[in-house]
């Protein structure tokens, strides 16, 4: 565990270069000892406290030759003098400072949390894949509505026709009972076509991922597990490939692990297992879904080839519909469209988008209210400080100098709010669970700072 980088940077900034190595070393050694004995969170808080004390106690640059050569040192001395003055002013009114910092911290923390979720779901819909925004979802608009899914025979037809894609993969998900040794847990799995990981551009963290040879009837039953499962249940065992687990009672051999960032093929959801489509017969014995033409259960995802156009891909998809109509009849009102993942119907995004937008609106209002409150507190305080400012002015402080001091106080409050928010963010991602729509689905709450 390394100490907070921002605090470390600040420390390095106020330590004279000829003493930096041993001093930062002392900080880091005590931090490591604390992290080991009292846990990472308390060690972090301690490190920040130590950093603030070091900042508050920093002498106004006893100038060494090295410092004089630095052009930034004049600016730094302004920052350290005015910063220290602002710090002392704020410390004289701890009640005001505490309330302002907490209000700003809560509002900033809420906004950062909500935005991290929006980022994870809407802006980077499939983390861990190569260029997820280039992925296209195959839909079949019909007169009666748009089908977001296709049957397996339809999928194979589209896959052969869509030459403008680097590949068309198919996926479905289902809850399964996973037995590791004697313990059983309920988790979510994706059944995927053999080219799924190749189309998405995912590389294994250990072992190998699924390939076309696994997705063949009669192929040995294999499974790929998530990084989360690997860490939680197998202690990151590097020799994981070859272990046998039971999925819905059927023994399957683990062949590999997905990278930590990868969560699956459905934006906003996080899966733990990936099985080839050929395992469908094991999971739903007797259903024969792979040959059923009328059962539309697969979502098809493809990636446009580098030199291909979306129009060409659309034409190929329509040709596929035509060939289906010719071979089997029907499909009279069916069109075919390739949509970016974020605007495709079905899946988790349509369900999550309104929740996220409402949350974002709420968070923005909270921030506005907090800023309004802090502003009115500061106005009230400014009225009380007229005498102090008048004294300063009569002692020779220019208007600019006074303004600079007030700006520094505001900046320090803002920085304090951001720091409070950073501390808050240790817990808020877990609170997001309360806002997730009621659902059985494995909703992902991936946040940049909690992702391994």
């Amino acid at each position, binding site marked *: 565990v390394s100490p907070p980088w921002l605090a470390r940077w600040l420390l390095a900034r106020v330590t004279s270069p000829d003493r930096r*190595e*041993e*001093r930062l070393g002392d900080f880091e050694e*005590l931090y490591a000892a604390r992290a080991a004995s009292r846990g990472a969170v308390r060690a972090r808080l301690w490190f920040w406290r*130590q950093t603030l004390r*070091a900042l508050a*106690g920093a002498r106004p640059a006893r100038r060494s030759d090295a410092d004089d050569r630095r052009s930034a040192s004049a600016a730094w001395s302004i920052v350290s003098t005015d910063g220290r003055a602002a710090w002392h002013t704020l410390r004289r009114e701890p009640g005001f400072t505490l309330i302002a910092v907490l209000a700003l911290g809560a509002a900033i923390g809420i906004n950062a949390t909500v935005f991290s979720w929006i980022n994870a779901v809407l802006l980077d819909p499939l983390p861990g894949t190569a260029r997820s925004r280039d992925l296209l979802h195959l839909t079949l608009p019909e007169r009666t509505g748009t089908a977001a899914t296709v049957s397996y025979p339809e999928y194979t037809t589209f896959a052969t026709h869509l030459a403008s894609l680097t590949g068309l993969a198919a996926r479905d998900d289902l809850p399964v009972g996973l037995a590791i040794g004697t313990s059983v847990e309920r988790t979510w799995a994706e059944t995927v076509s053999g080219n799924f990981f190749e189309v998405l551009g995912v590389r294994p963290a250990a072992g190998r991922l699924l390939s076309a040879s696994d997705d063949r009837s009669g192929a040995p039953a294999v499974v790929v597990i998530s990084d989360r499962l690997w860490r939680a249940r197998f202690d990151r065992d590097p020799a994981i490939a070859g272990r046998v687990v039971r999925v819905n009672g059927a023994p399957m051999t683990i062949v590999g692990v997905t990278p930590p960032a990868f969560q699956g093929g459905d934006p906003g959801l996080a899966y733990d297992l990936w099985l080839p489509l050929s395992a469908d017969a094991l999971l739903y014995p007797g259903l024969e879904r792979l040959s059923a033409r009328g059962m539309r259960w697969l979502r098809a995802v493809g990636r446009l080839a580098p030199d291909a156009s979306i129009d060409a891909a659309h034409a190929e998809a329509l040709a596929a519909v035509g060939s289906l109509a010719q071979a089997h009849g029907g499909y009279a009102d069916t069109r075919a469209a390739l949509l970016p993942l974020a605007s495709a119907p079905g899946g988790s995004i349509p369900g999550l988008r309104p929740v996220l937008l409402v949350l974002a609106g709420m968070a923005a209002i909270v921030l506005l209210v907090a800023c309004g409150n802090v502003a009115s507190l500061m106005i009230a305080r400014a009225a009380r400080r007229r005498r102090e400012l008048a004294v300063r002015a009569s002692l020779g402080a220019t208007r600019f100098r006074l303004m600079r001091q007030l700006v520094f106080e505001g900046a320090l409050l803002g920085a304090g709010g951001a720091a409070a928010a950073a501390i808050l963010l240790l817990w808020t991602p877990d609170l997001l669970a309360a806002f997730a729509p009621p659902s059985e689905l494995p909703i992902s709450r991936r946040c940049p700072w909690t992702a391994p």
Partner: protein
Amino acid sequence: MAPATLGEFEQFVLFAVAHLGRDAYGAAVVEAIAARTGRDASISAVHTTLDRLEQKGFLRSRFGEPTPQRGGKRKRHYALTTSGVQALRASHRTWQRLADGLGRLLGEQP
């Protein structure tokens, strides 16, 4: 007459350095002070004080070897100088003289 008097915290640091012997450096001093006085001294206060004591000529310092625990950063080891030892003795004597004759009040065994 002592050439310079020591502040309370300066005495703490000087005593800690004396206790630690060859292994006296910033982090160890912080921990020694916490162990012996129960005071949670801030590292930067210790650093500043070590600097000041070195300037006054009570301590001298040299770089140690890099160690893996500190991310490869070297330690600065401190040691008492002759005048540091004298200052330590002087302040110890001062405390002793101040306490002389107060054995009962201070709860010392006779």
